């Protein structure tokens, strides 16, 4: 908690129409981490980011960016932040080079062609630097938005669904860019629908739903804590009824009767009914022939769906 670069205290936002997009959000982002904010459509992800970046005036609460109140001390707070918005918006008739240089100036930095060149090259935009934005593909436009956000060397980067509508190759490339930024000490907050993305990238994950932060957890701990494991035991012969020795285990059978499915909490493997080894021992004792075994760990996606459903 000591080294949080962003601290959000009791942030609420009610829009003019009465819709409450954020409810008392408290959140703290650690310096140098990649934080993924997950949530279904309309959960408040973009509103939260917008409130931190100054695009939305919060109804209540405070945001501290590196120790600066983002309203009262908006200059030092905002100059630390780069924002890549969700929508592909830009000045259609500008060239790539001009629009990225413009962003740097807008954020109060003196011109630095070397830095702009480095950013454009890292995003493979260098070849396109003299192209007008209107001539670029969607993926290229997305990169330009990232380049603009990086033009003023921010310490915090917000990526609002950075890989929506981006092909797989480009997505991988962007992940590499994000990792490289993190290696240079940039703190990254991304929102995403792609659970795969959060699983791949994030150090910590926050889940937001109906404007409330439902959960914030270190990624592995989250999977560990909430992840269920399943062991599927394939049998040589279908079982009509379960042998009495197996009654203590939480088992389900498939319709054909030739598979036993054993669910267990990965964190509490050794507790309760004795876990996998006890089950295998019992199977052996009951004379059930085991053909094959395989285990499956629930993904972040399963966890996410469970969470959102549970609180809906």
């Amino acid at each position, binding site marked *: 908690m000591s080294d949080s670069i962003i601290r959000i205290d009791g942030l609420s936002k009610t*829009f003019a129409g009465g819709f409450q997009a954020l409810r008392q959000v408290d959140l703290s982002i650690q310096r140098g981490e990649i934080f993924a904010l997950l949530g279904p459509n309309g959960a408040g992800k973009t509103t939260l980011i917008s409130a931190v*970046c100054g695009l939305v005036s919060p109804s209540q609460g405070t945001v501290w960016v590196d120790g600066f109140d983002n309203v009262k001390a908006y*200059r030092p707070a905002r100059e630390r932040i780069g924002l890549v918005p969700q929508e592909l918006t830009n*000045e259609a008739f500008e060239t790539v080079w*001009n629009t990225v240089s413009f962003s740097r*100036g*807008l954020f109060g930095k*003196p011109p630095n062609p070397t830095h702009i060149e480095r950013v454009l090259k890292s995003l493979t935009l260098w070849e396109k630097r003299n192209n007008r934005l209107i001539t670029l593909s969607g993926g290229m436009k997305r990169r330009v938005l990232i380049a603009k956000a990086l033009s003023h060397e921010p310490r915090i980067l917000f990526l609002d669904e950075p890989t929506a509508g981006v092909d797989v190759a480009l997505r991988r490339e962007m992940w590499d860019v994000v990792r490289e930024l993190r290696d240079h000490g940039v703190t990254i907050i991304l929102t995403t629908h792609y659970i795969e993305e959060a699983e791949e990238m994030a150090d910590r994950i926050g889940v937001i739903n109906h404007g409330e932060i439902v959960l914030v957890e270190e990624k592995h701990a989250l999977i560990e804590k909430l992840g269920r494991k399943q062991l599927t035991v394939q049998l040589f012969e279908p079982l009509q009824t379960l042998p009495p020795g197996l009654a203590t285990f939480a088992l389900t059978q498939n319709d054909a009767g030739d598979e036993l499915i054993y669910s267990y909490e990965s964190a509490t493997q050794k507790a309760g009914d004795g876990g996998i080894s006890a089950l295998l021992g019992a199977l052996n004792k009951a004379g059930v022939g085991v053909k094959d075994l395989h285990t499956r760990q629930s993904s972040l996606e399963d966890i996410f769906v469970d969470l959102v459903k549970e609180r809906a």
Partner: protein
Amino acid sequence: MNVYPVRAIYMAEMMRTRRTLLQSVVSPVISTSLYFVVFGAAIGSRIDEIGGVSYGAFIVPGLIMLMLLTQSVSNASFGIFFPKFSGSIYELLSAPISFLEIVIGYVGAAATKSVVLGLIILATARLFVPMEVAHPAWMLLFLLLTAVTFSMLGFIIGIWADGFDQLQLVPLLVITPLTFLGGSFYSIDMLPPFWQGVTLFNPVVYLVSGFRWSFYGISDVSMGASLAMVLLFLFVCLAVIAWIFRTGYRLKP
């Protein structure tokens, strides 16, 4: 005050002007020249002198004002409306800059363009009508103050407008009538007494009158009143813009 954001906005806006040179410079110059040809050279020769100035020369300051007001408003309103419309205004709102820096950038660029246009039209006018400028320094001051003030008005309209139709509405329904009825083409003492009184509520009267004084030393209202009106209007616009950025009106939900 940080100079880099101001410069970035100013340069980007000037670049936009350069990209649309035909529409933003050539077309107003041509349309104003047509006024000179029709009212100055063709009809003007049949109209009596006003205050010792030939009609053709008399309307030059008014026409420059007409163009200055419409161009300042439309240019500045489009400059801020377009990013709002396309969504790229997110960058402006998330940047570490004050409203004053934003205004100086946008309004400065729009006003620069208007002043340059005004001078081009003045030079063009001299091709059609012989005339001298009696007080060039006052003339420039009026040109500048009016361009800045009405660019600010345009900026406000650009933020207020929800669509392209509203963007056109104010210039069409407010600015053009006020200018035509503001003494661009006549001296207000040519009006019946009642309308002379009414017309004093039109701020454009003071602009045109003051501007014309700087050319020929004749005016409908006193120079002091003209200057006071421009400055008053300027500070009202500035106050409105400050309020817009403080409350986020039509900018931030």
